[in-house]
């Protein structure tokens, strides 16, 4: 063992060591507890998520909770048994609130899950090896419980790997016993870490009050490049930053990490846990815990399963309840009083101290600071504890930050030396919590502000988008209106009407006529084929001529239309179009008039529309006047008049007959009717139209008596039918009804229709 150069550490104290109480016995195996409480959060970070349910059987080493985030750690079952509860359970913490935990009733068999040790870890990739360490649930066993894989994964280059075996706090001997008994495993673990990190040198720092441990580790490291360094006993040389300073002379920058200066520090217990995980495949389910204090009959170190209730371990060590003053988790300098002994051992519980009242007397009441400055001399972090005290009391957060409160490692050296017994560390802890809370609040406020502003921006954009759409719609409507006003010919409605009325009208009519003539011809030809008579032949001949004429007329019309495709719209469509335009203008004006508070543009628009409407109405009136004296086509006039005359004559005759006029009066009327009929026939002949096919039948009205007889017969028939349908009708009535019908028919037959 060579003696490399050591650097001095600022401050430090020499409290009474009291290690001999527990370091004489080898590490013992306490009995398997009947019930284990395995907290989900045993490391710094987010608690794990349970993977098992209540009632699930578990095996020793089985993963029962998985890491909740990238830096989190899983939790494994410390023994085989059954999960009996998942929920808040007591937890080893200064404030004593319950924490989520999985409770396992052991089955006493302590059966392992099949283990998968990786024999040759050197063939594994760095990531695989880190995943292995992480999956084994290894957190720093020195006390803080920082996830080891996360610490090893720091990107920066590590020049020096420091293995912390200093164990400077009084009473605690867990690492001492571990180094004495498991030096080979320790060195194997360090080899794995060295393989992972590739440091230039590995320093194993052990305080010189543990000569046996130094001896055992020195023996084990023989043949390796690792160096065991004996460091002078001084509290708190076991602090990470302090040990680094002693061994390398490098100071970790304020607010920085050891990795920033190329150093990484791991506890000896952690190294053994890494060995177990990589070479044996065992997850971290137990740790060496010191059971010590005057209140115990058999102080010792035990390998306690994680989750073992503290009271079980104290009973194993022979706790004398009457002598117990305070029960601490951790050492006397940095540990905390435990409220509930039912709380379990967790991965960071390195010591249980059951002290008698004489051993650890209650702190005397704090006196005012006398500014002696002893605390500043004792501070291993070179802080100014009394200044920090004043700022903490005055809640001067800026000054606390300026005086590097967060570099305080809460070792308690200042409070130990304070002649006024001021609980300095408690003040710093409270101030740190306050600062953290304030920073947290600030971060939350900033987050809320960003979210609020993002929301405001989103709402504003949505509103702007809506407004833009609204404007686009309004503009489109405006353009449409403008286009309409400028080029009315473009109006689809007007175009349609022009097409319908102007161009197609005549041709359409001719087409219909031609096709009708054709159909009539076909029909007649069919009849001719069936009965060949001269009359039919003549008829077919006429029809064929008519059809040909119709087709000719149609051809002519179509040719004319083709010759002048853009036929000027006739008077009638013009009229219609202007009427439509006027109606649309009126509707628009109505709409604008209904607007509340029209702006200038709208008022101007209204004015323009009104003028347009005036023009349109004037045009309309002019066109209507033009159109009125031009009634239907002239040639058909005579025909119509003749028809009207015939109808008048017929009506006159009918009226005269009804009033019971005698034949002398009727005769001239009848003659006039015949005359009118002949005039109609003449007109029809003159009209040039094909003669109507039908023959007029002169339907002379029936006389009053005849109508009475017919009515009588109808009544009689109806009565008879009614009686026949009625099953309850008497036969006499039926006979009478039949007789009545017969009489009526006789009467009708006797008086034939007079023509």
């Amino acid at each position: 063992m060579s003696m490399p150069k050591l650097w001095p550490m600022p401050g430090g104290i020499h409290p009474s060591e009291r290690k001999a109480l527990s370091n004489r016995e080898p590490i013992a195996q306490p009995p398997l507890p009947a019930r284990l409480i395995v907290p989900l959060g045993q490391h710094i970070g987010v608690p794990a998520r349970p993977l098992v349910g209540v009632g699930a059987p578990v095996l020793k080493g089985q993963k029962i909770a998985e890491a909740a985030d990238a830096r989190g750690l899983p939790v494994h079952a410390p023994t085989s048994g059954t999960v009996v509860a998942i929920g808040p359970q007591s937890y080893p913490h200064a404030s004593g609130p319950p924490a989520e935990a999985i409770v396992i009733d052991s089955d006493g068999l302590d059966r392992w899950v099949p283990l998968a040790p990786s024999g040759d870890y050197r063939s594994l990739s760095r990531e695989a090896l880190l995943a292995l360490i992480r999956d084994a649930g290894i957190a720093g066993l020195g006390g803080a419980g920082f996830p080891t894989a996360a610490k090893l994964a720091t990107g920066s280059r590590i020049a020096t790997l420091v293995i912390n075996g200093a164990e400077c706090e009084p009473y605690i001997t867990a690492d001492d016993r571990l180094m004495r008994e498991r030096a080979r495993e320790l060195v194997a673990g360090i080899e794995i870490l060295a393989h992972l990190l590739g440091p230039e040198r590995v320093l194993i720092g052990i305080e010189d009050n543990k000569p046996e441990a130094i001896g055992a580790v020195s023996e084990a490291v023989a043949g390796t490049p690792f160096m065991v360094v004996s460091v002078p006993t001084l509290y708190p040389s076991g602090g990470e930053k302090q040990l680094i300073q002693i061994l390398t002379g490098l100071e970790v920058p304020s607010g920085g990490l050891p990795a920033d200066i190329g150093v990484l520090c791991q506890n000896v217990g952690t190294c053994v846990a890494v060995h177990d995980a990589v070479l044996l495949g065992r997850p971290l389910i137990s740790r060496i815990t010191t059971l010590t204090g005057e209140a115990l009959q058999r102080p010792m170190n035990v390998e306690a399963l994680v989750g073992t209730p503290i009271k079980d371990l104290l009973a194993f060590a022979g706790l004398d309840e009457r002598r117990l003053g305070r029960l601490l988790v951790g050492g006397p300098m940095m540990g905390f009083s435990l409220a509930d002994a039912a709380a379990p051992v967790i991965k960071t519980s390195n010591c249980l101290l059951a002290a008698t009242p004489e051993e650890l007397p209650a702190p005397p009441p704090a006196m005012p600071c006398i500014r002696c400055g002893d605390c500043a001399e004792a501070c291993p972090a070179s802080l100014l504890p009394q200044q920090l005290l004043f700022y903490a009391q005055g809640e001067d957060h800026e000054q606390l930050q300026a005086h590097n409160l967060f570099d305080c490692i809460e070792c308690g050296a200042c409070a130990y030396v304070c002649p006024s017994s001021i609980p300095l560390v408690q003040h710093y802890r409270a101030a740190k919590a306050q600062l953290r809370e304030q920073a947290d609040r600030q971060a939350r406020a900033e987050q809320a502000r960003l979210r609020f502003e993002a929301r405001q921006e989103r709402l504003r954009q949505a509103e702007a988008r809506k407004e833009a759409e609204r404007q686009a719609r309004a503009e489109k409507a405006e353009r449409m209106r403008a286009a309409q006003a400028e080029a009315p010919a473009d109006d689809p409605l007007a175009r349609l009407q022009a097409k319908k009325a102007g161009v197609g009208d005549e041709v359409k009519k001719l087409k219909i006529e031609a096709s009708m003539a054709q159909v009539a011809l076909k029909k007649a030809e069919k009849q001719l084929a069936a009965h060949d008579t001269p009359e039919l032949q003549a008829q077919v001949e006429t029809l064929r001529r008519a059809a040909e004429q119709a087709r000719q007329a149609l051809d002519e019309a179509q040719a004319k239309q083709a010759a002048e495709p853009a036929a000027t719209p006739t008077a009638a469509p013009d009229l219609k179009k202007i009427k439509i335009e006027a109606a649309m203008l009126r509707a628009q004006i109505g709409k604008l008039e209904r607007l509340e508070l029209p702006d200038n543009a709208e008022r101007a628009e209204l004015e323009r529309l009104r003028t347009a409407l005036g023009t349109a109405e004037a045009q309309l009136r002019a066109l209507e006047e033009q159109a009125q004296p031009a009634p239907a086509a002239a040639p058909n006039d005579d025909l119509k008049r003749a028809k009207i005359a015939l109808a008048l004559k017929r009506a006159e005759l009918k009226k005269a007959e009804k009033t019971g006029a005698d034949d002398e009066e009727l005769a001239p009327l009848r003659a006039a009717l015949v005359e009118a009929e002949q005039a109609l026939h003449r007109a029809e002949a003159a009209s040039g139209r094909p003669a109507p096919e039908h023959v007029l039948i002169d339907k002379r009205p029936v006389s009053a008596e005849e109508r009475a007889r017919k009515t009588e017969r109808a009544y009689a028939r109806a009565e008879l039918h009614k009686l026949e349908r009625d099953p309850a009708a008497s036969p006499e009535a039926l006979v009478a009804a039949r007789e009545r019908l017969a009489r009526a028919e006789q009467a009708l037959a006797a008086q034939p229709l007079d023509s």
Partner: protein
Amino acid sequence: MSVVIIGIGVLLALCLACGAILGFAAVRFRVQGDPVAERINALLPQTQCGQCGYPGCKPYAEAIAGGDRINKCPPGGEATIQALADLLDVEPEPLDAEGGEKPPMVAFIRETECIGCTKCIQACPVDAIVGAARQMHTVIAAECTGCDLCVEPCPVDCIDMIEVGRDLQGWAWERPLPPGRLIASDAERAA
């Protein structure tokens, strides 16, 4: 005599030059927004709750910069009033709120009762409520500022404001009694 004229001329030229520089600087290096309001806004808790009578923290910050009182923010409490008093160099005033200072709260939707009306989503100033029409809504507790603006619009009253408890992660050591105090009073013991 000429010395006086030269002196006046030199001073005049100097004044004009300086004025031109200042005028240019005032335009060129003009600070956008109100820097005082920005600093005040940074001290406000950003719950956007509107309990001060302004629609959000920024409008209140602008109002304070314009001379409004600094004691209208119940979520910020005494700490905010103190910080504002320090910043603006005015006397701190007692909080002007009915219920006084309130502990931090978080909204909680009783999900079985939610009818999915989205009214609370529209009310939330920090978009901390997720859900859709006729779907159950829920609060993202980490983003909730506890402003309770969502409580009033809920037609079925299924939103509770719950006090944010302290878990192990948020646990903090208590401040010891100040040195020199030998006897703790009953009130201090009870606290």
